[in-house]
Structures are given as C-alpha cells and as structure tokens.
C-alpha cells in the first residue's frame, strides 16, 4: 500500500520534473475548475443555458421563413400563366413550366368552356389534372376523387343543375354530346362550386380545347419567385405571366412581421441569458480574489494573471457554447417537431456566432473584476478586508 503510494509519488515527481514549464499554467486552470466544482459548474451551467437558448432562437429565426413559406404554399398558386387573348397555351407549355421550376413547386393546367346540360342549362366545365390539383389546391374538399375515365367531379352548387339525383348525365359542347358519371362532389366556397371538373384527357378528346391556364405554386423568396416569373415569360412568350398578388403580398407581410417579432424576442432572450452568465461569472471571479492575491504575492506578473483569468474564462465560454450549441439544436428541433411537424434543420453557420458571443461574454465577466482587483494590494485581500 505505502509502497504503491511512494511509487506513484515518485512517478509524479519524475513526470513533473520532465514536463515543460508551461504545464503549471494548465494545471492551475484544470485544478481551479476541479477543486471549486460547485461554483465552476454553476457558471458553466449558466453559459450552457445561455448558449442553448441563443442557438435555438437563431436557428428558429433562420428557419421559420422556410417553414412558414411551406405553409403559405397551401394557399395554392402564386403565379398564373394565361394564353394571351384567350388563346390556348402551346402543347409543350406544361413541360416548359416544369423545366423552369425544376422541382421548386407544383404546376397544374386548367381548361375551361361553357357546355350545356341535357335540358339546355349552361354550366362551366373544366378540364384538370387531378393528381396535380390535389397537390396544388389542398383546400378543395372532395368527397371522392374521380379515378376512371368519363367520371366527373361536380361542384356542390352545380350538382342540383347537372345531376340532382347523382345519376349519369350528358353534356354537350359544339354539337358533341358525351355521357359522364358523377364520382364525387367538390366544395371550395368559391367559383369552383359552380363547375364540373373532368380529367384533362377526357376533356381534350371531347372538346378539342387545349388548356389555357397553368397555375403555378412556386416556392422561394420573393426574388426567386420574380426570377421564376421572368424565366417563364422567356420560355413561353405566348403566355401572360401574372403573380397572384394577394397571396404574394399577404405572404410577404405575414412573414416579415413574424420574423420581426421573432427577432425582437430573440434579442430579449439572448440579452437576458447573457446577463445571467455575466452575473454568475462576476460572482465566481470575485470569489477567487484570494487566489488572485496569492498568485500576485508569489510574484506573478499582471500579464500572467490576466492571461490566466482570461484563459479560464475563454475555456469556460467555449466549452459552454459548444455544449449549449448541441442542446440548442435539440431544442430547436423539438420546437420544430411540436409546432411545424418537421424538424428544424441544424444550422452550423450559427456555431461561430454562439462561440464568439460566449467567449466575449465570459471574457467580459472575467476582465471586469480583475481590472478592479489589480489596483488593490494583495495584502489587503489576503487579510480579508
């Protein structure tokens, strides 16, 4: 037992003798943290919480735009292409639009005519690509989507005119009469309720009319959407490209206000968290004025003392910021899951800011009391006055 202790003491002495002079500096750093575990831990804890909150807020601030934009795309089209002077769009218009969008949105073609029912009533009949419409116009409340040819989707108001008993019905256009079976009803609360929707192939083979409108829901910032519109104008010169202004403007307003509120909240929270770190660290450093006095009494230079406390603060700030960053990413992901039902993507670009902020706050908290203490004679501190 004692032999082993002696052995380890010898080893320690040997390793200390061999180790370079600077290791004293690191040993003091490490021992200070280990011996004053409670105080160091509470300072670190404050730093971690502050960094976590700051990371989560910054992440949300960056991501909320994308999240809300996705939500706004449920409003449907924000760009509409119409054939100039009521002409049909060229046959390859849809594929042109698709190639411009390159996955950044959904496009759905529509064709409209006025047909007559078997008792001579006029009704608007539309041809649509139902798969695309389901993605584009999610607010459509449909009892049953058509799945077979010659099936029609009928607006709730058109139902009483076209097929009051849900029976098969005939529609005629330019002398061509065709029979359709109702598949389901459609309710939107707007003009769609008075229409009959057919699948595009049925519609084209019956009327010979090509789509005259393409509705596009493009995702992206206002600049990206303007760019998409310009590309569409170039790709299909025979079409009039218009923004759906109420959607574009409403989206910009709501997003702007939400982001501004979030920024204000983030600033307030980060300020409070920084204050928390500052007051905890001030106490911690002030508490160690005896260490400071002893080091000074033993002949440490001002530079070494400043360096020591600054290194300690920076290590604490850095470690706290990194741990806090990880926790903050988790917090942001959790908020994303709970609120937006998709996780918030971690932004590593936030890390340098959090790290720099953490180190600056801790340095500030360390340097302030040190500069106060430096003016005091070590003897005064050591005598506890």
């Amino acid at each position: 037992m004692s032999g082993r202790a002696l052995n380890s003491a010898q080893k320690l002495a040997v390793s200390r003798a061999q180790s370079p002079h600077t290791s004293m500096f690191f040993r003091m750093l490490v021992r200070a943290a280990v011996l004053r575990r409670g105080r160091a831990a509470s300072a670190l804890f404050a730093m971690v919480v502050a960094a976590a909150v700051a990371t989560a807020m910054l992440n949300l601030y960056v991501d909320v735009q994308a999240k809300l934009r996705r939500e706004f795309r449920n409003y449907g089209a924000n760009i509409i292409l119409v054939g100039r002077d009521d002409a049909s769009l060229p046959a390859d218009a849809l594929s042109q639009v698709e190639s411009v969008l390159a996955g950044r949105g959904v496009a759905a073609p529509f064709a409209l005519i006025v047909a007559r029912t078997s008792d001579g009533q006029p009704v608007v009949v539309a041809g649509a690509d139902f798969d695309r419409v389901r993605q584009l116009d999610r607010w459509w409340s449909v009892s049953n989507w058509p799945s077979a040819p010659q099936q029609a989707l009928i607006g709730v108001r058109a139902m009483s005119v076209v097929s009051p008993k849900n029976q098969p019905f005939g529609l005629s256009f330019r002398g061509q009469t065709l029979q359709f079976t109702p598949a389901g009803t459609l309710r939107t609360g707007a003009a769609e309720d008075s229409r009959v929707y057919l699948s595009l192939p049925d519609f084209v083979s019956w009327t010979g009319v090509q789509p005259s409108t393409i509705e596009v829901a493009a995702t992206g910032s206002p600049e990206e959407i303007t760019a998409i519109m310009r590309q569409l104008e170039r790709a299909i010169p025979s079409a009039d490209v218009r923004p759906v202004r109420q959607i574009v403007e409403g989206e910009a307003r709501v997003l702007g206000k939400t982001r501004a509120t979030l920024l204000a909240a983030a600033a307030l929270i980060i300020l409070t968290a920084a204050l928390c770190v500052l007051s905890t660290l001030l106490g911690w450093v002030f508490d160690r004025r005896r260490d400071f006095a002893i080091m000074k009494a033993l002949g440490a230079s001002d530079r070494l003392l400043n360096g020591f406390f600054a290194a300690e603060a920076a290590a604490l700030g850095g470690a706290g910021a990194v741990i806090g960053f990880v926790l903050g990413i988790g917090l942001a992901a959790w908020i994303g899951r709970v609120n937006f039902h998709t996780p918030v993507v971690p932004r590593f670009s936030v890390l340098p800011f959090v790290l720099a902020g953490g180190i600056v706050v801790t340095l500030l908290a360390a340097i302030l009391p040190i500069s106060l203490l430096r003016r005091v004679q070590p003897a005064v501190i050591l005598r506890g006055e």
Partner: protein
Amino acid sequence: MFVRLVYESFRRQKRRKALAAVAITLGVTVATAMIAVATDIGDKINRELRTIGANILVTPQEDTLDLEIGGVNLKPPSDGAFLNEADLPRIKGTFWHNNITGFAPMLPVSVALEWNGRTENLTLLGTYFAKPVSFGKEEFTTGVRTTHPWWRVSGAWPDDSSRDVLLGERLAARLSAKPGDDLTLSGRQLQVSGILSTGSSEDDQIVAPIALAQEILGKPGAVRRVYVSALTKPEDALARRDPRSMSGPVYDRWYCSPYPQSIAFQLQEAIPHSHAEQIRQVALNEGAVLTQIEGLIFLITLAALSASALAVSAAMATSIFERRAEVGLMKALGAGKLAVASIFFAEAALLALIGGFVGFAAGGLLAHQIGRSIFDSQIAISPVLLPVTLAIAVIVTFAGSAAAIRKAVRLDPVFALRGEL
C-alpha cells in the same frame, strides 16, 4: 432591529443590491413584454392575414350557377337572384360584429363602352370603395379598400356617391386612357378617376360605385355577392360539425366561437335569402398559419420566461453567496437559522417588488414599442397582469435565493468569519 438590519443592508450595500435589482427588473421587463406580445400576436397576425382577402362569401340562396371564365362573366346580368343592399348593414348587427373588419358588395353588369368611335362590350363591376354605412348607432366605413388591400390605384379612388369610375390596368393600356379622361358607357358620360391594378380579372374591367351599376342594370339595391372579411379562430373538430345535429350547450359554444363556419351561419341569419360560406382557400390556410405562429411565439415566450427566471436566480444566488462573512457574524452573535433566513427573504421580497414594479412598467413600454414598430398598432398590457407579474417575480426571486440561503444558514460561523470557504 429586524427592520433596521434590512434597511441598513439596502443603504450600505448599494452596489450589490443594484446588481440584483437590475437582474430582477430586466427579467420582469422581458417576461412582461413577451407575455404581452404572446397574448396579442394572434389578433395581430390575424389582421395581417386579412390582407389575403375576404374569407366569407355571401351569395343569394336561390342563385343560378356562376358562368365565369377567366374573370369574364357569361351569365346574363339580370339572370338569377340578388341580395338587397339595404340588408347589408345588418352584417354589423351579428354576434361577432366586432370581428368583421369589412365587407364589399359586388354587382357585375355588362356595359357598352364607346371610345374613339368604336363600341366595345365590357364588364362593369359595381362595389363599395370606402363607403360610410351605419347600423343602429354604429357608424363604420367599409368597401374594397379594406377587404381587397392589394388593389392599387394610380390617380384617385372614386367617391362612393360620385359617378367616377376606375379603369382596369390592361383595359386602360389597350384604350390608352388615363385618369381624368371622359368616356361614354351605355349612353352615360363618366369620368375616369384612376387606373386600377389588381393582378386578376378586374384589370380588364371597369370598377364603379355600386349605385352606378344598379342604375345601368335597372335594379336599384341589387347586389350579386358580398365579400366579408372576418377575424376568425382556427377551425377545429367542433367547428366542422353540422349545427343542426348539435345539442343545446354544444350549439351555444359553436355559435359563440368565431369560427368561419359560425360567422357564416350568423351572416346567413342576418341577411334574408342568403347563403354564406367560408372561402376555403383563405379560411382554411389562415387557420393553419395562425396556429403555427401562435404556437411558435408561445414556445418562445416559455423560453423567455425561463431565461429571465434563471437570470434572476443566478443574480440572487451570487449576491447572497458574497455575504457569508455577514452571516457568520450574525450567527456568532447568536442569530438563529430562522432569523438569518427571514432577513434574506425579506430583502429578496423587497427587491422583487421594486424590480417587479419597474420591470412591469418597462415591459409595458417595450411591448408598446414592439407593437408600434412591427405591427403599427397598439399592444396593450392589461393591469390585471401586474399582481400576477409581481407574484411571479417574488416566487422566482425566492426560488433563486432558496438554495443560497439554505447554504448560508448552515454555514459554520467560524469558517465563515475566517473566510475559509
């Protein structure tokens, strides 16, 4: 003695007290401002969402089908049923009238435009621009300028009692007409007061005060449809139920909630022979966006509250920890644990009350500033929040001090006085 101890401690240790008081004040400020913003954000965002357009459409009950393609109305103008313009002010007499931010009646009619010797058939849309309407004692102004805020006019908006019209942007470009021009519409001399740009079918039409459209149609008081813009609550399971199948209390709850469905139902009751329905594109998505923003701000408010609670606790813990020597002295002179703890708690309570008052006032100002700069409107903070805020400030301060005070009263006076800890 007790009072003197507390008093002297405040008088002599100004720096330490100031630090703790600043922390509490800032914490309460942030908490108050965030609570005020969070309670009001729903209403504010709801109003912003109203810029997307009306969310309820009122049409005649027994109407024929709309025959509208690309904004061109193919239905014979006198065909079908109409609403009566005289019934419209009743919209402001419904249960949720305070939630209705505006309404705009529409009456499209066909007109013959004579311009440069040519005659062209066009659609003229009659509506309210910003018309003063009164219901009972209530006076209000409504029209497309509130319900369709994305409509832009270069020139001047026509007065609702005048016979001036707006020309759609594309129509004006085709005719190369400009504000101030005179034109002849179905035999009437009218003046163009401005050029209207909307981004949709109105760009090819003429928009006029509704009285003019009624005169051209020959049906005074006729209205084809009414767009209503209402502040609503996001739809939930109760909203979707059919009111006819509800029992008494459930029906009352449904009726007295500002769901788009129940507001539409009340509009239908208020206007005879009408059918009101939510415009699903607007109403449904509005609910989704609103829920998400409210949820986000709620979670962030929680984060703000915990951050400020933590800051207060940290400041209190630090300020008590610094006073070990004092505790040692008190204990050496024979003070019991209870006496020491009660002094610290009394100080904490005093600090919390001062910080709470100042913080509440500052938080109110901050919320007001946020409301002004972000939403251009007031965020009011209700005085009811003051006692709640003060209570929370005291509780958080106590909770923050508790651990430090417990440690302080357990301290051995000998070690404390020698400074060995």
